[in-house]
């Protein structure tokens, strides 16, 4: 079943999901559902995170040691896995933020040279 792309919605840039996850977790532990919702609500529902990419990304980040996880009880009164930033994750977040800012600057310069 092919999904018709929602014209209003933005596709995530390759590699940015990891950064957004790290950023979302800056405020404390959260489960996968919460992370996905936080990302879409903070983007005014323009960014939509597919669960099929969210969970692999979470596990990948955990494997790299940037996240750690713990089982807890969610608002729905059900078992849920809560993810949390590690120290290495915090460092990684600030690295990614710098790189992103740089990238946005550079791309912006190229795309809108007149704006200088």
């Amino acid at each position, binding site marked *: 079943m092919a999904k018709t792309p929602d014209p209003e919605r933005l596709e995530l840039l390759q590699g940015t999901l990891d950064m957004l996850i790290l950023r979302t977790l800056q405020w404390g532990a959260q*489960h*996968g*559902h*919460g992370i996905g919702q936080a990302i879409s609500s903070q983007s005014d529902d323009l960014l939509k995170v*597919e*669960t*099929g*990419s969210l*969970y*692999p990304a979470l*596990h*990948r980040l955990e*494997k790299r040691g940037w996240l750690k996880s713990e089982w807890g009880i*969610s*608002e*729905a*009164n*059900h*078992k*849920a*896995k809560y993810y949390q930033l590690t120290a290495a994750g915090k460092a990684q977040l600030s690295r990614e933020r710098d790189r992103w800012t740089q990238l946005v600057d550079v791309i912006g310069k190229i795309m809108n040279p007149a704006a200088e």
Partner: protein
Amino acid sequence: MRPEERELDEEIRGHLALEIQQRIDRGESPQQARANALRQFGYLPQMRDEMRRVWYSRWYDIAEALVQDMRVGLRSLLRAKGLAATVVITLALGIGANAAIFSVVRGVLLRPLVNRGEERLIYIKQSAPGIGVNSTTFSVPEIKDIRERSTTMEAFGEFSTIEFTLIGLGDPRVIQAGVVDGHYFEVMGLKPILGRLVEPSDDGPKAAGVAVLTNRFWTKSLNSDPSVVGKTVELGTRSATVIGVLEPSVPYPADTEIIANMVTSPHHMGAQMTTRRTHRMTQLFGRLKVGKTIDEARSELGAIHTAIKSDHPESYPPRSDMRIEVAALRDQIAAPARPVLLVLLAAAGIVFIIACSNVANLILARSVRREGELAIRAAVGASRAALRRTLLAESLVLCGSGAVLGILLARPMVAIVASFAARFSVRALEVTVDSSLLWVGAGLAMAAAVLLAYVPRLPSSQNPTGPGLAAGSVRITSGTNRRLKIFATTQVAFSFVLLAGAATLLATLIALRSVNTGYDMEQVLAIDLPMQTLGAVTDQDLAFYRKVTQRITEMPGVEGVAMGAVTPWRDAGKLGSIPFGAEGFTPENGEENPRARIRMVTPDFFNVLGVPLLAGRDFTPEDRRGSKDAPVEEVVIVSQSLAERIYPNGEALNHRIWWIDDYLGPKPFPRRIVGIVGDVDDQQIARGPVMAVYHPMAQFGMAGRLFVRASGDPHALVQPITRAIQGMASNQPVERAATLEDIRAEVLAPERLNAFVFSGFAGVALLIAVVGVAGVLAFGVSARTREFGVRLAVGSSPYLLLTSVLSEGAVIVGVGIVTGTAFGYLFAGIASGYIQQLQMPGLSALLGAAAVLIAAALAASMMPAARASRVDILQALRTE
């Protein structure tokens, strides 16, 4: 399910619970909420796949790179087809031989039996090592004692083998039958596939005769005919009803055609059988009680046996040193095949080592040729691990193909090896090709692949200069050359071990075949003419034999006819040795009475079989059984060894001897020695001094074997003789006609097969080793073309170059043989711990093996050596 998968499921359930909760809060109905949540979640299997990639990313990467490398490897090997084919075939031989033999070893030595609860099935053996008897079996009173005293066993089953003339199923024939008690089948854990088996209610003298058909007999001889159940058959003098068919099972201790209850055998009902402690003919099986171990049973039965021995010292002479042994039935059945199979397994292992070192040589030579390629790759930044992986991928391709071919080869080999092993253990008959073949093949291929990948040396990435990169051509370093030679030497050494083993077996075989047996081998036909009754010959039998003898004597092409009780070698063990006393002879103090083999023959027996009469006279028809009114003197003829041992001064004739054994009569019955004949050994082919006493069959007797001396082709007489005898008595079986020469060949078959199979291994090993030596030398010569050219240019004689290459080959072989000898003795030392009766090779066998190896290797070295001496000087100098 793996833990990470289970956790993922849990996590997803948590996610869905939250989503559904939110949607319900937003006002959707629970059903709607659930459906929408699931839809929004997306396609689960795809996500799982993604997750696996995350979890096992390392392995994914490695596998992907390896597949890539293997593709490259396959392409590069296709460019070197000759080499690849040699490697694959060599490996296939090594892997195939190992896989096949391992299948058989597993089937025979390791697999459990089909019997229910086979782990509790015990075989109990009584032996008398003091007089060299491996299994004396048990007598009925002994079994009674054991049964009464044992607490570790749930039950005991009795089995004895007896010959019956079977009438009522096909032609009248003599068959091997098992006679069992009512507990036997229950102890053995066997079921009928038709009808019922012998049960405790079939025990006792009043029971009706019943017989169970073995599965093999029923399927092979009776075409699985279900209507045989319920039939009545004649077994010798009694009759029995067929009550059932046994499920397929390992025939042990004897491959019989039927198994009957005790009452079918008059012998088993007689006083001899039931009361005499030394009348041993029953095999004993036991079933352990649940929770008891075989060690407990062993120590308990050992104690019981000791007690029995001290209760009845007269039945257990200290000299025979009787013992009781307890073994799991499975081990007992496999035991005879064990040494043979272990030796074969070792031989196959050695062939594998040889094959691997040969392949290692080829790969090494190839890697020298591609040093240039590897150096370039290292120079442009390939890590050592990446280069190693390339090599590993290539050798995986090679070994994988070798394994596939090897397993294809192994399939028919399993059948051959199994039929070989079947001569030692019946279990080999049920060996089939199974998946273990695949696993062994794959395992060996992996081992070889890893080994081979680590053979070539890698150029260092830190220092990727060297001649390879500069010249891009073959330069052989002394290190590589040394490795090549070490591998070649290894091959020679291991081949030598196999060759020496094969030479030993061949030497034994040749010695046995050429031994002078004392018989006239080629012209004498031996035919089984089984007696209808067990025990002594009756006057009726004698009259029949006289008629038969007379009738056959008159046939054209017949030079002589005689009867006996024992066919040489084929009936080995049938009539044992019995103690005797002799007039004018007293054993020295503390020494037991001498023993002699007891034999019964008709007049002319010695003449027919070609045994020389050394003194006195042969038996005549007058040596017959007397009556009260007209007594006839009873006489014997003795063998030369007996005469010389008992009467060293040559006065044996006319002295009297008598048996000391109450089975043969309570009072000693002296008989006069009327003749002395040459020693013949009808038990073993390698002849030793034999103490034997011959009785005239008409006075003392058992019979059943007919001997005919032919003037022409003995085999041509078989048909007419059979017809003539059956014309006289249609129920008389006439069986197993063969010349003594045939019988010797038949008896030597296991030895011949041993030698044949082992020589096969040795031949393969020799071939591989010779190719290896020649290959190393050829490679050395081709790498040194320039050197040879220069040497020839400055005036070196071609002859000198030839001998220098040849001597290089000779050094490899010489070192190989010395190492092989050392290794062989070490190996034999280890092996003798596992395999008894291991034979050390004699000097002649060693020298023979060495000669074969040296000759083959020198012949193989000739070609590269000749090439070295004929190097074209100008071309050689131009090559660089």
